[in-house]
């Protein structure tokens, strides 16, 4: 029972970590490798608002999410827009930005126990005899709401539909008057907000440390690769797969294997089915 509950919580955490990455790639075809850095940066900004500026928690979270959205938009408009369409350059450029942000934070002293966000609620409750803190329940609830919102946004609102149009057929979308660069800016910015949201939700479970940024990036890649690059429904399914695989190995082997599982899954999926579980990309584009 404990396995099931913590498996679900772990899977939902993975969804939160990876959905922004999957969305940005799926829509704007921009692999945003600064994802992990944005995750940590949001936590750090929230921490500053909370403790240095003394704002209430909710306001701090909202402000930092707005800031991270602007940073995401700037990242696209200033840097990525110039290397559009060259996948390797896009990866190098965005990873470079992420690396700069993370190492700058490390240099600024982001390590150890100093930086901690408080959980939203300290109490815990029992679900079928397993103690679960309210914070984790909130995480699951927030993820559900976010997924519903995303589904509604991409299916029933004009900006969301524009994003999907660009992803499916860029030329036809251009003919219909959809601005490709604006849609991509929205996508990267939305991806950044989702990364930030994940940061604000998940970071209170531990310390804000730089290594977490790299881990989040690898998890996001693992989930996206497994679910199919760019398919965010695949990302949800893949999160559950990897989440449970992780919890099972951690329970029966050792906690070191937490990370190994994610890496192994990347390798196995890429070798056997590079388009992932739900990828709809053409086989020809990915292998000879």
């Amino acid at each position: 029972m404990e396995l099931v509950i913590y498996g679900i919580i772990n899977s939902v955490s993975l969804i939160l970590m990876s959905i922004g990455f999957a969305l940005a790639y799926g829509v704007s075809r921009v692999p945003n490798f600064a994802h992990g850095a944005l995750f940590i940066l949001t936590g750090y900004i929230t921490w500053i608002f909370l403790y240095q500026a003394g704002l209430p928690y909710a306001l701090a979270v909202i402000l930092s999410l707005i800031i991270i959205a602007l940073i995401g938009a700037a990242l696209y408009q200033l840097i990525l827009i110039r290397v559009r369409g060259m996948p390797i350059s896009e990866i190098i450029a965005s990873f470079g930005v992420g690396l700069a942000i993370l190492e700058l934070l490390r240099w600024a002293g982001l390590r150890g126990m100093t930086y901690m966000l408080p959980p939203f609620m300290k109490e815990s409750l029992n679900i079928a005899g397993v103690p679960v803190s309210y914070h984790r329940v909130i995480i699951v609830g927030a993820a559900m709401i976010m997924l519903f919102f995303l589904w509604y946004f991409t299916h029933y609102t004009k900006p969301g539909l524009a994003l999907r149009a660009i992803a499916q057929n860029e030329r036809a979308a251009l003919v219909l008057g959809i601005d490709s660069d604006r849609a991509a800016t929205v996508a990267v910015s939305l991806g950044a907000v989702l990364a930030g949201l994940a940061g604000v939700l998940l970071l209170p479970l531990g310390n804000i440390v730089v290594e977490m940024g790299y881990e989040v990036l690898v998890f996001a890649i693992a989930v996206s690769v497994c679910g199919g690059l760019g398919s965010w429904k695949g990302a949800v399914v893949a999160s559950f797969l990897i989440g449970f695989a992780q919890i099972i190995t951690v329970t029966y082997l050792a906690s070191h294997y937490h990370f190994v599982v994610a890496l192994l899954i990347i390798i196995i999926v890429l070798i056997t089915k590079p388009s992932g579980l739900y990828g709809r990309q053409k086989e020809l584009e990915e292998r000879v």
Partner: protein
Amino acid sequence: MMQELRKERLDRGIKVRADSIYAISSLKEIMFLMGPGLILVFGLLVLPAVVSPYWQRVLCIAGVYVLLSISFGFLANYVGLVCLGGALFVGVGGYLSGILNAYFGLSPLLAIPLATVAGAFICTLLLLPCLPLRGVYFAIISFVYPLLAGRLIAATGVFGGTDGIAELDVLTNKWVNIYLIFILILVVVFGISRLVNYEDLGLVFRGVKDNEQAITASGLNITFYKAQAVFIGAALGCFGGAYLSHLYGWAGMSLFAIDFSILPVAATVVGGSGILYGPLLGAFLLIPISEALRAFGTLRIVFYAIVLVFFVVFWTEGVLEYVRRKYEQFEHWVRV
């Protein structure tokens, strides 16, 4: 009224003459053609002899990165495989050499070449299932291998686990140390240039990158040729790793550090892709700068990252192409 100007570039007279039969007409033309090569050769041979012992050691480590950069440049520019697995090559080579030396008692001079060949073979086998993958997919998977290897060693505790294999034999003579890698760099850079420009195998490699259909239509097995290219690239990295483990006298998890994967990319981006000398120049520019910035701690990675982004986004031709243009052409503004 705004005046429209455009930059016009013209080949220098000497470049035009040196391209044809007049190349051998005078010493000046011959020097124009051979100058860059001679600067490279003499530069690499003289440089280690004139710097202080501390910088000699830095140059030894820089040499490893240069080999990795050449390996990356070769695979990316001539075979079309963006291989971020530099750390895998270094790690496998370093650990193999360490094992041969510590557990089987082979001398470093025997362990290094053995580890180079055997390590390259192992790396090729590991990457074999993913060779059909293209572009980003291959880049991701080759990047993940060394991460996985490092975590597995930490988790299972084989080969000394997180402590690594200590007290390996080192090469005591520092001149042997330094010229071993510098002469190898020269051999490799000229050898690979020759391979890709003049040999049949090089032609096939470039075909694999540019026109897979032509290769398939010729009845050649693409994966087989990619494997050969990876073997060459991996051998360079494995040698670097084996050499490093005997330079430090220690083979540990840091041989799988992502620096070995990232820096060759940075060197290629900074130096300029296209020809092999670009990555070489980039690595020789970046390592001393990074060494000089050591005092700033992790801030130097920030500096690195910013340089990398700057070159990728705003100066894609790289340093070498810029220098080459200045060397061969003159430019001036003309009214449109």
